[in-house]
């Protein structure tokens, strides 16, 4: 009895065309697109006091900006209308990578105290995103926060005690 594996090998050897396999591209969430995530990061920092935020505060805002539900929860909490149990901040690991990419691309820098500060390239990125009307939902959300929100405000929001 002929070996099937050998038969297949032989078949391939006789074919004039070569086989090629390509992976089909996969859909990804929009917030993983480099343009989007760096612009979103810039928009958040652009609204912060001194254009600087601690990484954990950045996480809170990143989470708050995520979808309609988190946006309204965040704003309710800010207005003192929610109980601490309601707001469940999820730390999004992709934000850390976004910050890393931002550091590499000189969109942000790490200050001596470890906070993340927006650099001129990032300021420009935020300005152009605003001009083109991109990330409008996110901008509207950020605009509803107090002008140049401070670290202490975010501390207060996270402080359940």
């Amino acid at each position: 009895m002929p070996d099937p594996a050998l038969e297949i090998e032989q078949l391939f050897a006789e074919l004039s065309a070569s086989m090629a396999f390509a992976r089909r591209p996969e859909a990804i969430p929009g917030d993983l697109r480099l343009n989007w995530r760096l612009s979103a990061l810039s928009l958040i920092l652009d609204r912060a006091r001194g254009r600087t935020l601690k990484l954990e505060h950045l996480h809170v805002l990143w989470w708050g900006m995520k979808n309609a539900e988190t946006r309204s929860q965040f704003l309710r909490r800010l207005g003192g209308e929610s109980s601490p149990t309601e707001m469940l901040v999820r730390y999004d690991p992709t934000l850390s990578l976004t910050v890393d990419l931002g550091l590499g691309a000189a969109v942000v820098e790490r200050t001596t105290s470890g906070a993340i500060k927006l650099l001129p390239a990032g300021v420009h990125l935020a300005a152009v995103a605003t001009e083109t009307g991109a990330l409008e939902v996110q901008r509207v959300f950020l605009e509803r926060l107090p002008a140049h929100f401070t670290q202490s405000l975010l501390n207060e929001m996270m402080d359940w005690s």
Partner: protein
Amino acid sequence: MTGRLRIRGLRLDVLTNVGRAGRTLVFEDGLNVLRADNSSGKSTSLQAIVYALGLEGMLSARREVPLAHVMTDNATLGTVDAQVLESSVEVEIENGVGERISVRRYVKSDRFSASLVQVRRVGPGAPSSPVALEEYFVRRPGAAVREAGFHTFLATFIGWDLPRVTRADGSEGLLYLETLFPFSFVEQKHGWSGIQARIPTYLGIRDVAKRSTEFILKMDAADRILERQRISSNLSRLEADWQQQVKDLSDSARRGGCALERVPTRVREGLTEDAAIPLTTVADRWVRLEEALELLTAEGAALRQRPIRTSGEAAEEVSASLRAAELRADSELATLGVVRRERALVAGEASQLELRIEALAEDLQRHKDTLTLVQLGGEIGVSLLADHVCPTCHQAVADGSDLTEHAMTAAENIAFIERQLGTYRSSLSDSRRVLDALSTRENALAESVRESRTEIRAARSTLTSENDAPSVSDVTRLVSIDARIALLSGTQEELERTRSVLRNTARDWAAQRARLDELESSDLSPEDRLKLSDIQQGLQTQLHRYSFSSLPPSQVEISPDTYRPAHEGFDLGFDLSASDMIRLIWSYLISVLAVSQARDANHLGLLIFDEPRQQETAIASYQALLQQATEQGAAGSQLIFATSETEQSLLGMLDPASCNLIALAPGEKLIQLLD
């Protein structure tokens, strides 16, 4: 008919470090010919008219003064090189009712901004003294619409009620003067390269060449287009009204316990007599509303006719119907339970779908934002965004590398999400339809259960009461029949009212639709066609006169679509010889002028040609043009030609008595020291 605008005079004023220089030109009605050698300042003087009126936007989109160095920088006066310290142009114009104004605008000045235009009323009827100066601004946002804008003033002075036109972005705005003056002014540099070569398109007006021609010729087409837009929006409003009224109809029917058969969902279907027929149930049978009313009325009447039975008499029949009613109520309750569970299930599904759609829509927006942002990478020099290369390790960093190495491109991802959204949205609309049907069913069942229970209560009460007491069942039946009749009659009236509203809507819609069809058949009214055909005739006659030879002149027509000269359906352009193009421009602009003068139109009645003899046009053709212009001048127009033809040659072609010839000596410059 006299023109709407006459140029009476022009003064160029230049203050130099060696003294005051300038020139004053006076223009008459009819043909004016300004003769001077090349580069002596002819074009400058004609452009000065455009500049004084703040119309340099028709020459170029650039925001610089369109005048020669002699007005802005330095001038050679005789043999002396002089520096320009201050300069201005002043033009005196007269409108169709004989009002005269002088308009002055500074070209170079430390004292006055170039955006400022000073207007002084002159001539008879003007305030004698002190001379009142009015100041307006030009070349700034709002100059065409604000009261202090010179173009608002100028349009009123000319007597133009400028139409609103559609801009490229879909908004509406006024037609700008810059798009209308090209019918009266052909400048030397670009004006002779094609028919209406210089209608400014940068102002963002949709179909600007057509809109301006329609205004100049006072065609009905513009109104017809506006009317068409209005009717289209009326039609969509009526469609929306119809939807709402159909919904009202269904709601009324539902409230009255009726279902509608064959509901016309679109207004174009209209409301025929057999559409939206209300049906309801009587004794478990679906019948038309009118029939139900008849049946119930008959049953009520029958019940009333026989004396109310006593409990004893009715007992046997009542116990039978009690059993039946109990069985029915049980089965209805069971079904109701099933329907309710099903509805809760579908409602849960629908809300899941809504959540999913909301999330997808937001994700879709993110991808779209990405596409918007894609162009920015290069702009800000972040290599990460432009090339997707890590700035630190110089390896490729793809979108979504946190999840997969093979992410879709943003465009693919958008298409993918849109397909998903499409599927979810149709699922959702399906769920909603099922929900509607289920809740109608649930209401009907609940109503049946209520009726059965009332019947059971009445039957029980009949069976437990004294034998000679009146049968509660009978009485209750009568009461419930009366209540049903009242409900159904009310519903019938309400439905009839809504039906009549619907019929009105359908009638309005049909009338508007018919008007739209009529308008859509052509934008041109009979009067418009007459004007275009007159222009065509004038054009052909003149082409013949000027020895146009690229085509037989009788084959040149005016396109009803572009209003421009065409041949066999194509606009005439590069297929003509260069000199025939010049002849075509002469003929077209003079024909438009002539037809506007002869028929009611908005043309200024003014035509300025800077060096009409281009491309070595044959002298015989040029002579024919000058004759044509003289005739047009005699017919009431004002024409101003600037030419470098020698005086002798001009005198050979022109009768000096029939035109105003302003001839500079050979070599003489227009700007001269005045002292």
